């Protein structure tokens, strides 16, 4: 029935480079010298961090994220990246902050489809299923609250 089947969350090859960098490790900070690991619990009721229990048949399924700069935000050299669907939105936030060389206190706002800012613990796969367009999850970013 319309709307009740999950859309494909495999990497789309249309209009994207053939080899995409994966953002998964930005669940941690990328720099080899950093030791911060962000591992927020996936299960709302779990008292300790535990591996996510995947619902999809393929737990390694990837989502293609497309970044779009807004206003005066710097433009990335590369706009398309892939990320495992079960990752949190926080991973995308961590990656962008690092890629732009922004410190924790530098303002950076991320939105889906120029509409709303997901909570950091929202799951990328869910966001793609609900808001993906043409095989990508579009993430707009700005240095001021653009749609807040």
């Amino acid at each position, binding site marked *: *029935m*319309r*709307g*009740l*089947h*999950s*859309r494909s969350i495999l990497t789309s090859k249309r209009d994207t480079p053939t080899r995409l960098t994966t953002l998964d490790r930005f669940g941690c900070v990328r720099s080899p010298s950093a030791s911060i*690991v*962000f*591992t*927020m*619990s*996936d*299960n*709302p*009721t*779990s*008292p300790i*961090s535990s591996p*996510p*229990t995947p*619902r999809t048949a393929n737990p390694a399924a990837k989502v293609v994220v497309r970044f779009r700069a807004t206003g005066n935000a710097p433009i990335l050299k590369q706009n398309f990246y892939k990320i495992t669907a*079960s990752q949190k939105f926080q991973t995308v936030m961590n990656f962008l902050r690092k890629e732009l060389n922004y410190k924790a206190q530098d303002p950076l706002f991320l939105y*889906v*489809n120029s*509409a*709303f*800012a*997901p*909570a*950091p*613990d*929202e*799951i990328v796969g*869910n966001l793609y*299923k*609900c*808001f993906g367009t043409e095989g990508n999850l579009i993430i707009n970013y700005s240095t001021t*609250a653009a*749609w*807040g």
Partner: protein
Amino acid sequence: MHRCSYLPLVTESVREVFVKSGVAFTGHDADIWYEYRGVPLKWHYPIGLLHDLLTSQYRGSSPLPWHIIIHFTNFPTDKLIRINAANIIDTPHDSFMSMIKEADYIRNGSIKKLMSLSKQDQTNLWQGLSSHDYDKFWNVNARLVTNDNTIPKYIPLRVYLLDQPVIQEPVAPVDDNLDCEYTLRDILGRMLPEIFPPSLDAPTTEGADNTRKSDASEAVAILHGIVIPIETPILWLSQNCSYPDNFLHIVICR
């Protein structure tokens, strides 16, 4: 505490009670966090959702009042989103408004309806919620949640299980011909077929229906602390039983 509120909105008055009774706390309200049976409570979840999520498995054995523990130190930054001290009320407000926008986008494919509200109306949503002013809130929210009496494209809905990540996917309220309204059973049957098998009323082969009946009878859908009849149309549920953030937050209890 109000079900349809958020923990940061009660922190100030709760902190005052504890400090008056002798707790030596000189930090900021952003340092305070809550926990139930070892689980840190997410401040961006409605209080009613937190309660349903964490107590539904103890139905019958954990009566109200809901005992939660307040912490003044050791904020678990690996498990909870940290609010900047300067934004202790702005951040929950922004988070709430983002949910409202997400719900509008889900219904209509854009946030035009929300953005067409006057600035005062948008402000009244949060002010009505945070001051528990029912009329102030509903004068604005009625338009959003009924979608100005048009059928939404999809329903803002999240499904929570105790041992899996949150589920959110496109949920249409009616079929393509607009003549069949989907029920909660239809929705959950597609999202979680192993927990909500196909309708028990459908003709079955001999001997099969007894097994399915016993498997299906275990799971219930909980919303606002009550078990929702599984045949409830999802559109009606969305228009009448959504949380203030315009989402149906449904907890599945097996």
